[in-house]
């Protein structure tokens, strides 16, 4: 009974400000992460693509942006945006949009690098083949290179999304009532439920992050069709190092999981 009592505030972690108020809690984390990824994706693609340009006046600003943002802690960016953006824009911005803006600035730099790596990873012959059939560079990029690059990007993109989701907890510092802030408020208002508060925060983040990474694994498996030979998500070290398989006593040789996807084609 005591335990149930501890967790009686659970809905506030999920949805809103304590004791009642606008949207908050875990839902706000999810909204922040999704909004950021949707907005910063295009920025990241543009940035990553321009980063590959041979023209220095396009390439250098992009490189500078990426290197500066990646070498700065997220919390600094959040403070910069929080203090400087209203000053530059001349109007007040709600903390929510301030948080979205700083997360976008942060995420775009990382996504730019993912996009760049993805485009570079497409073999050169693909562009040659496309050009030799008379496609323009733009068409070749759009129909041949980018679709393949995006597939290559998916795993790193999703793992970045997981870490971005976790990073949304940082914006509590400027007073966005997302899961961390909601938990802190509850633990302060009702100190007798403090332990539950921190446990709930942890569980909340874990459930969502874990679900995204599971989704990522499935997606990766489906996309693996292009490279069945090297796609071995379940490989263990012995296989990797080409060691002979160990036989476990009293057990039949287990089916070779790592090769299953390769055989099923």
């Amino acid at each position, binding site marked *: 009974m005591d335990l149930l009592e501890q967790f009686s505030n659970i809905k506030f972690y999920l949805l809103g400000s304590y004791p009642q108020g606008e949207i908050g809690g875990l839902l706000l984390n999810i909204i922040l992460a999704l909004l950021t990824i949707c907005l910063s994706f295009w920025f990241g693609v543009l940035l990553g693509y321009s980063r590959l340009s041979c023209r220095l006046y396009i390439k250098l600003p992009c490189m500078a942006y990426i290197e500066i943002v990646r070498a700065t802690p997220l919390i600094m960016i959040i403070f910069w945006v929080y203090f400087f953006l209203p000053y530059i824009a001349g109007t007040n911005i709600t903390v929510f949009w301030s948080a979205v803006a700083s997360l976008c600035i942060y995420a775009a730099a990382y996504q730019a690098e993912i996009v760049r790596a993805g485009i570079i990873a497409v073999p050169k012959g*693909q562009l040659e083949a496309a*050009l*030799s*059939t*008379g*496609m323009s560079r733009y068409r070749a990029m759009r129909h041949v290179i980018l679709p393949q690059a995006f597939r290559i990007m998916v795993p790193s993109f999703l793992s970045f999304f997981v870490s971005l989701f976790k990073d949304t907890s940082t914006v509590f510092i400027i007073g966005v009532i997302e899961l961390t802030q909601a938990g802190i408020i509850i633990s302060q208002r009702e100190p007798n439920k403090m332990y539950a508060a921190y446990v709930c925060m942890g569980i909340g983040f874990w459930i969502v992050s874990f679900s995204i990474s599971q989704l990522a694994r499935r997606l990766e498996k489906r996309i693996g069709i*292009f490279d069945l030979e090297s796609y071995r998500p379940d490989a263990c070290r012995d296989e990797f190092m080409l060691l002979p398989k160990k036989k476990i006593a009293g057990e039949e040789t287990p089916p070779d999981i790592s090769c299953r996807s390769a055989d099923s084609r």
Partner: protein
Amino acid sequence: MIKFIGANKSFNNRLVLKNINLEIAKGEVIVICGPSGAGKSTLLRTINKLEPIDDGEIIVDGMYLSDPKTDLTALRAEIGMVFQHFNLYPHKTAIKNITLAPRKVRGLSRKEATERAEKLLEKVGLLHRRDAYPVQLSGGEQQRVAIARSLAMEPKIMLFDEPTSALDPELINEVLDVMVSLAKEGMTMVVVTHEIGFAQKVADRVVFMDNGEILEIGAPPDIFVNPRHPRTKEFMSSVFHIPVFNVNQEEDQDF
């Protein structure tokens, strides 16, 4: 159809093409052979300007390649190219690989493009594999799809860059058969290959290159059996292991 006038090209201060002069007539089948690093592939790739030349001139179907106003997409649409490593688009099925360029460049409707692609797939004997992804096809099948992909643009010239070098010996013939039938239909073809048997069967002329230079041009028997240039002699004797002149066994070429 294709004319090289004093074409030169260098990579990192090393001349890879030296003063190339060559004229290829319509419907002619030219085989380029020579040791690796001789500049064969580079020569082939200058024809559709995948590699630009430094000086000299190449005229393809009336278009001057050194002229910056030449529309490269129009030029390349008239020239099909087949690569050593097939370079099929791995994210598209065989039929989609073939229909992509006709639809985007020639502006064909999906239906027209698919009809044309099916005809070509039938021609290369792969209609039953139309919905397979490249990873599901064998090397020979991939290369035949790649040939069909080039033919779908109805090119005037076909370039083959070592089309059988990456294939298992048993799969080479199915690709060569397609190329032979193409040659018989009167396609202008420039082929870089080590398949001497193929060259003897269909080539009108053989070009022997070494060190970026064309050393000898002649009919297949002249080059393979009675080479004049000492370098050609040396190369041919090593190709045939011993100075053998009767070459009917294609399996015998080992590089």
